[in-house]
């Protein structure tokens, strides 16, 4: 009997793994004295897959029987290679409880194929959450996937029980969605998103009045966009995400590089398809700049530019598009500007601000503060350090940042000629200007000083 559960687990976890949402954060849920578990604002990754993704939740489908036929999905109706199966409510509850007690997981992420209709499917997911919360006093994290088309009543009950709800958009344009998922459209996804947003807003408002307001998806909602299955460019993907953050107040948009599942004809052929891993990474970086660093979409990726620079992180790319804004003085620049320097993060920017209240921040302090000098050196000044390249030659800076440890050959060969032998620069320019103990400037001091900020 147990072997049977193990087999179900293998099949239904395998089918759920392409949903990359992993967060177990976003809402505090306190435990009772006799209950099991809690949720912390900071999530915990309990292990990582061999491809480096975080595993914090038991992420499974309730059932992989599905009436839909979406080309990008492994459990699509027409895929005959898949063994169809389903858990019972009790099995999912027991797995969650036993895994949680062993500290394997932060909670449950439950999704499902649509096995009869939206309501029947959603009802099963809600039943699992209800049993965990009410019968088993489970206070760990629960993320439920909402099935487009489910009734509002069920959505509301799901919101009361879960820490986060999500509806996946999957395909970043409606035209492509129609092409690969004939049964779906944007309206059926946006409608439940609206319901969740309203429920969540109401809960937030009530919570201001009384701490005992019934919860509604305290961790908000998220969605996922699959990249690489359809031809949308980065600008389209990011502007969709930007709109979702603004209009639907989503907590997260996940970008899932499409993994070829079969040759369907509607999606890329596995034989020639290449995993868009770099693209996925750059999208997350750009997303991060928009969500955490107050960049606007246009600053990250101008309208006339459809694709992110795959060789350069988006913050460095931004700085090189606006060379006239740099370099900035770490001892006087406001926090918002420090955050915009490539190689400086929120933490190191905070550390600089804390340190300069008591004295001057010098070049030698920066590395200890966690600044990535390899990139930051071209964009900042300290009393000892004046970068001389910025403003004069962004192309040269790009070449140096991108070149890094690797020879830089791939970029150079783009020009058709064999890569010239790159001789190392005559003493690293920035380092050359550190004040020597005697106070004299090191040799390169005579190089032209860039305009101070």
């Amino acid at each position: 009997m147990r072997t049977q559960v193990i087999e179900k687990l293998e099949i239904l976890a395998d089918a759920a793994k392409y949903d990359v949402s992993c967060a177990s954060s976003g809402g505090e849920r306190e435990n009772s004295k006799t209950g099991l578990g809690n949720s912390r604002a900071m999530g915990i990754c309990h292990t990582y897959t061999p491809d480096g993704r975080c595993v914090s939740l038991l992420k499974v489908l309730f059932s992989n029987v599905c009436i839909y036929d979406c080309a990008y999905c492994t459990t699509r109706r027409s895929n005959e290679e898949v063994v169809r199966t389903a858990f019972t409510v009790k099995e999912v509850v027991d797995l969650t409880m036993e895994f949680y007690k062993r500290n394997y997981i932060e909670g449950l992420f439950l999704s499902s194929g649509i096995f009869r209709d939206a309501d029947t499917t959603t009802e099963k997911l809600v039943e699992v959450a209800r049993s965990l919360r009410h019968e088993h006093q489970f206070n760990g994290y629960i993320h439920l996937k909402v099935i487009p088309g489910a009734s509002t009543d069920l959505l509301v009950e799901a919101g009361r029980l879960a820490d986060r709800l999500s509806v996946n958009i999957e395909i970043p344009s409606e035209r492509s969605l129609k092409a690969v998922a004939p049964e779906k459209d944007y309206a059926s996804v946006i409608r439940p998103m609206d319901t969740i947003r309203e429920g969540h807003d109401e809960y937030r408002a009530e919570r201001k009045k009384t701490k005992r307001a019934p919860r509604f998806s305290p961790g908000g909602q998220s969605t996922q966009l699959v990249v690489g299955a359809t031809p949308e460019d980065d600008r389209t993907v990011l502007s969709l995400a930007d709109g979702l953050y603004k209009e639907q107040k989503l907590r997260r948009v996940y970008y899932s590089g499409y993994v070829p599942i079969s040759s369907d004809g509607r999606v890329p052929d596995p034989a020639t398809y290449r995993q868009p891993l770099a693209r996925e990474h750059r999208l997350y970086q750009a997303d991060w700049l928009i969500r955490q660093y107050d960049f606007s979409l246009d600053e990250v990726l101008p309208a006339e530019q459809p694709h992110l620079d795959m060789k350069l992180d988006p913050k460095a790319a931004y700085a090189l598009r606006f060379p006239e804004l740099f370099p900035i003085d770490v001892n006087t620049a406001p926090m918002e500007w420090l955050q915009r320097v490539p190689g400086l993060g929120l933490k190191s920017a905070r550390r600089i601000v804390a340190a300069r209240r008591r004295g001057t921040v010098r070049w030698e302090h920066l590395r200890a503060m966690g600044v990535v000098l390899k990139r930051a050196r071209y964009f900042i000044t300290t009393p000892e350090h004046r970068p001389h390249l910025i403003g004069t030659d962004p192309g040269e800076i790009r070449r140096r940042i991108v070149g890094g440890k690797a020879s830089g050959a791939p970029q150079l060969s783009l020009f058709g000629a064999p890569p010239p032998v790159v001789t190392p620069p005559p003493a690293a320019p920035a380092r050359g200007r550190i004040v020597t103990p005697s106070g004299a400037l090191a040799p390169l001091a005579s190089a032209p000083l860039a305009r101070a900020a």
Partner: protein
Amino acid sequence: MPAPEARPSAPLQLGTATYATDGSFAGLLCAYARAHRAGALPAEVVTAGQAAPGHLFGAPEAVETEAPLASRMEHGLERVKPGLVGKLFRAFLSERAGIEVAILQMIDAVAVDGAEAVGDWTFEPSRQVSRWAQRVGREAHRMEAFVRFERHEEGASGEWAVAEKTPSTPLAPEAPVSAGPQSLGPSPAASGGERWLARVRPEYHVLPVIAEHFALRYPALRWTILDERRRLALVHDTPAADLAPEADATRIVPASSLPDLAPTADERAYQAMWRAYFRAVDIPERRNLKLHLRHVPKRYWPQLTEKQPEVSMMALTPEADVDAEAISRTAAPKPRRAVKALGPRSRT
């Protein structure tokens, strides 16, 4: 701060004295009070009775730990900068040579300059304290993630263990789920013999840091986290069944005081299911072992259930005669280095 009326205007200089405390954090706080009276910081702080032979400076001066004084200082420090005591404490738990003096310098800088000294990374002791506090904090966070509990029975030969051996088969559809709410509450039956045991080998002494996290998460379970490197155990009991009303439910005890434990019959099955899950969620096309190793360094693998080799499927049938010893052999991390006996330095 110890003497607000005599707030120093200039930082204390390092002197040549060696202080001997009782090895506790409270003792270290009292050492600052003493240094403040003496007008100079000590060059070294050692634990009484554990002084390394032949240290450079004169005979250690004994510092007495006064709990009220230490607690007044903690209050003062927290008032200046909330979270500071936790940070100093985590740095202290790094057990690094010289960290005690850096902590005293940091306390002194806070006494002179206020909260701003804390985040100032141009000040060496502040940087050192921050760095070690961060490392200990990271190790603690990793323990919160990588601790793996196994269901055990206490006193495997007692009558309780026999009763518990009846397979509960909670996953078989025809059998009722026995791991229901009744096993969670502090009912005398459930808390009589069941104990959740995890073995860890953290780089730093993080048990005091992680205690609260696990106490909040598993208040109704009886669990033990055994630090095999330091031979210390973090033990949590459910109040009703095990404890006198005033006793601490969560506490740190020497490993030698732990009762005998044996894994329960269903433990192996759940471990196999977790490994099956871990295999199923892998996407081989995206494999990136370098990234994987950065997140899960190899030194944690011995304690991770998902990194253990699969055991025979025979054990998965409830009827199988479970060899408890074999399970504990499979599950127990294999020490790669000899256990370094540090002795139970009281850090709480």
